[in-house]
């Protein structure tokens, strides 16, 4: 026997704990808010699991969590960010992204209109990428236990035939490219969250990289390794590679592409763009012979217009060096905690 109060809940414009309890309110939420924005043949049955057709080759999967604050920022929101971030992890692993699953943890009290807007944005991003959300789950936690909305995803993709990416392929002499301006996302979010008053010129670069990455493979270039430089920025990727390969990487500071707004923001906040997060960029390690063609290929794509060659892989020992304006190399530290604005 269940004790279910037969009285209907009063209409609410906020998410309540009851929305996560599996009853009428939750069904209504799923139907009106989630399915309305994410509808596709796999999701519609709203089963406990989704039935997918067989894959043609090795399956690539990734999982990600998104906790960005604020939920809306210039250039994106947590919804579109979640789609782009997951799709990008698949893309830089050499996979064609095919499906997403979605877990939402909603804070009690979040305005329903906010949830609707974010899920709509997520749905639109998924549709634009051609990657449906095939399964999902929703929970509501008490006020204070989440920062508005947390989003967790799993991405499923299929490895492109003939692709062999990894640190094991990197050799001394390989070139390091980056597909565009550094730090746009991190600066936009930092400015919005901390109220730094830097205006709307700082915009997140959140975008799906599937097409950009595919163009590199379609051109038959010998790409060794790809990574999207999210938290910790390009610095984190370089350190990861140096450690995994035991090789040194030398970066030319003058070659780092920066947007005008990004440049100004880094100057007044005293931030190093190498440490600031990106959500629509890729770091490319490519053979010396393929470097020029890879750069040209990136630049032909709308998301790669500002692509640049930023460095070269050297011999061991492992380390990352940055050559400054006077040509003197300095050791690049590992990112330690989020970059903070400074006055000193």
């Amino acid at each position, binding site marked *: 026997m269940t004790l279910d109060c037969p009285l209907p809940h009063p209409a609410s414009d906020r998410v309540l704990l009851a929305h996560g309890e599996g009853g009428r309110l939750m069904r209504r939420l799923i139907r009106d808010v989630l399915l309305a924005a994410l509808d596709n043949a796999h999701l519609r049955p709203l089963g406990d699991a989704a039935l997918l057709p067989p894959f043609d080759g090795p399956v690539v999967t990734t999982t990600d969590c998104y906790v960005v604050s604020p939920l809306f920022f210039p250039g994106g929101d947590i919804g579109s960010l979640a789609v782009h971030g997951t799709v990008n992890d698949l893309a830089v692993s050499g996979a064609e992204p095919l499906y997403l699953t979605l877990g939402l943890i909603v804070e009690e009290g979040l305005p329903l209109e906010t949830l609707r807007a974010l899920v709509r944005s997520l749905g639109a991003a998924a549709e634009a990428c051609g990657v449906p959300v095939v399964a999902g789950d929703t929970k509501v936690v008490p006020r204070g236990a989440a920062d508005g909305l947390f989003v967790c995803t799993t991405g499923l993709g299929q490895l492109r035939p003939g692709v062999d990416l990894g640190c094991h392929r990197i050799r001394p002499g390989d070139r390091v490219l980056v597909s565009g301006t550094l730090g746009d996302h991190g600066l936009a979010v930092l400015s919005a969250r901390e109220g730094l008053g830097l205006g709307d010129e700082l915009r997140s670069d959140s975008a799906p990289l599937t097409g950009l990455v595919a163009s590199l493979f379609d051109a038959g270039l010998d790409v060794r390794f790809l990574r999207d430089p999210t938290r910790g920025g390009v610095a984190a990727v370089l350190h990861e590679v140096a450690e995994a390969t035991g090789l040194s990487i030398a970066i030319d500071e003058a070659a780092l592409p920066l947007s005008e707004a990004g440049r100004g923001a880094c100057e007044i906040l005293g931030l190093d763009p190498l440490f600031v997060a990106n959500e629509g960029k890729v770091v490319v390690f490519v053979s010396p012979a393929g470097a020029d063609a890879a750069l040209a290929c990136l630049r032909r794509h709308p998301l790669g217009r500002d692509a640049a060659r930023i460095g070269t892989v050297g011999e061991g020992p492992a380390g990352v060096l940055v050559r400054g304006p*006077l040509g*003197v190399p300095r050791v690049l530290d590992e990112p330690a905690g989020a970059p903070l604005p400074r*006055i000193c």
Partner: protein
Amino acid sequence: MKHVDEYRDPHLARALLDRIHRSVTRPWTVMEVCGGQTHTLLRAGIDQLLPAGLRLVHGPGCPVCVTPLELIDRALAIAARPGVTFCSFGDMLRVPGSATDLLHVRAAGGDVRTVYSPLDAVALAREYPDREVVFFAVGFETTAPATALAVRQAAALGLGNFSLLAAHVLVPPAMAAILASPGNRVQAFLAAGHVCAVTGYEDYVALAERHRVPIVVTGFEPVDLLEGIALAVAQLEAGRHAVENQYARAVRRDGNRAAQDVVAEVYEVCDRPWRGLGILPRSGLRLRPTYAAFDAEKRFAVEAILTAESAECRAGEVLLGLLRPDECAAFGTACTPEHPLGAPMVSSEGACAAYWRYRRGGR
């Protein structure tokens, strides 16, 4: 960016380096006072390009490093209080007090916010009248006008929920202390350009005369620093000891009177202990009695603070230029940015942190 990029021109920099190399005939020791200058010198690798006999020593110009431990502990106690919104420059968030730091206070539930400007803290006080907004006013003479303006603005707006913890320190007493310390080897100074933009450089004339040291007011970009060094070396080689202004585009001899006036209206000079250096007379700023209502030290009674500095930390010697960070036994072992023993290892431009970031491991 205009008025920035020109001073990063590698050709100008190289030409200045050549001039320095040609003019040096003897070993010299030059101190750059300001942490921001240290940052540029090490980042651009200028210290590695100078002639072997020309030694650069890094001064105590990192207000984060020298903010007295007792004030930091007081700030941490205030920040931990419910009802307080504690605002600070980002620089201070990781600086260790006796037992904790602002980031840990935040993790434990304190409302700690980073702000770019003290005026943003005043705006927060306006927006949240039920919160006690406290601003941690660290910094040299460069920053004092901004914090003074914040107090003036709060007064004009009649804000009863804004206060500040005054922790400003003044540069000339530190330079005098360095010159007076036994074992001092500094023969010339590159004075802090932005401090002088506010204060002017009249104060330095007597110092240069008394101790017979050239003092060159210098900017912060590579070309500025190299020009400053070139001017200092030229004076040293010629046996002169005058005050020169390399940073003339921003600094006038009498400084910025409007800025000085607002500081003088809100603050008065006091004795202040410098972390690692002990008490320097007339080297700090405290709020005037007329502004006592905005003094966080008076507003928040904090129980007796027992400070405990690490016994191993030799920050004082580093700040006076008597010890190079990598000459300290704890450097890189007991003391790293992850677990710093003292402030110069964690501040973005403390000498120890700069050495760690730019010199450790790589040559």
